[in-house]
């Protein structure tokens, strides 16, 4: 899909009116994640047509509906080991994302094929390196694809190597996190410059352990404003010591 300042408003209108086919719609959503021009055009188009939505006569709200919504929120709060665990439980995908995404992590985690591939990648990659990391975590995206490998050396340095192209919008940055313990909560290991692999100097942390969670999220440039993960989760995985 070609996009520039002249075509973005046109595509945004057709997207907002629901005139694109599903493949085009998805392409627009992906593009909008990294393209501020398109994002702005979509927002402008929404505002342009919103008054038509406000012409409806409000319907009577059924008594039980709020209760059902609240019950749905409770479900969402329950962390599922491996598949559902994340450092940023509130972070979710774009509003227009399809229904299946919520369950994608679980599917990814259950995919044994992905897991064995991941191990092979990690082992090959860690062979022949000088210092031995204390743990290695292979980070998968929602689709179960390998995105990055984190080696935590336990001396407050960690090396993260990206194994996939991660698109980082201009005003965003990729931040690396780990969860040393529930009490400590998620701790930032640092930011990836321009979305490239790098060696990070982390704050002093307890020695990393087996099954420790590592995660990368998309945050505002300069890092999460709250010191905790706030953005969408790009990839995550549990560490294991090499043997």
């Amino acid at each position: 899909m070609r996009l520039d300042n002249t075509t973005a408003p046109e595509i945004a209108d057709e997207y907002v009116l629901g005139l694109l086919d599903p493949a085009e719609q998805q392409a627009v959503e992906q593009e909008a994640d990294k393209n501020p021009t398109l994002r702005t055009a979509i927002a402008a188009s929404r505002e342009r047509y919103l008054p038509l939505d406000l012409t409806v006569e409000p319907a009577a709200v059924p008594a039980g509906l709020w209760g059902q919504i609240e019950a749905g929120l409770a479900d969402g709060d329950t962390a599922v080991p491996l598949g559902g665990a994340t450092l940023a439980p509130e972070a979710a995908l774009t509003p227009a994302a399809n229904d299946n995404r919520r369950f994608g992590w679980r599917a990814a985690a259950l995919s044994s094929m992905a897991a064995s591939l991941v191990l092979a990648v990690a082992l090959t990659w860690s062979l022949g390196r000088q210092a031995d990391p204390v743990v290695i975590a292979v980070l998968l995206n929602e689709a179960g694809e390998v995105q990055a490998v984190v080696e935590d050396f336990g001396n407050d340095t960690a090396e993260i190597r990206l194994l996939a192209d991660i698109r980082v919008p201009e005003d965003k940055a990729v931040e690396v996190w780990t969860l040393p313990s529930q009490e400590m909560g998620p701790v930032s290991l640092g930011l990836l410059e321009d979305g490239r692999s790098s060696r990070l100097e982390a704050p002093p942390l307890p020695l990393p352990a087996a099954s420790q969670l590592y995660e990368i999220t998309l945050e505002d440039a300069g890092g999460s404003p709250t010191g905790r993960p706030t953005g969408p989760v790009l990839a995550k995985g549990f560490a294991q010591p090499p043997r």
Partner: protein
Amino acid sequence: MSLAELPTEDLAAMLAACGRGERSALKRIFDTEGGRLIALAERILRRRDLAEEVVQDAFIRIWTSARQFDGSRGSARGWIYAIVRNRALNVLRDGRREDTVEEDRLEALREDEQMEHILSAWQALDRNSRLHDCLGALDEKKRSGILLAYVGGYTHGEIAGRLKLPLGTTKSWIRRGLSALRECMA
């Protein structure tokens, strides 16, 4: 036109509170916007049960995505309504609206009523608004095409059928209509 009860700045504040995990803020959004959002989804889906389901899912999505709302990229109301619209359109495109089996003639009658209903959204706009004027400045077919798509969730093919125009012509009419409307409202 019914006016919004909550100013959009308040809605933005409610979304921020949802992002901090305050359920009362989500309830407040539901209380002020829920009825209109159900009606909005029903206008697209033509079924109350599906519309309620869509709004239920949409509120869970609003809750989980609230932190991603960015006020510099549009209004809180536009963001919330887009979530409901997108879900309604997805359900529609999955073909669930067609689940109800009706007699052909009854369906045709309902279809005409539905067209009237959709096209009347334009008349229901505030007469002093830019959108009302700019839609009014379009030829009838362009205006109808845009309204059928946005208000009724019709596809290019469905619009071509209703307006009795070839598909290619319909697409280019709508495209030109959208472009004229952008210019008019700029």
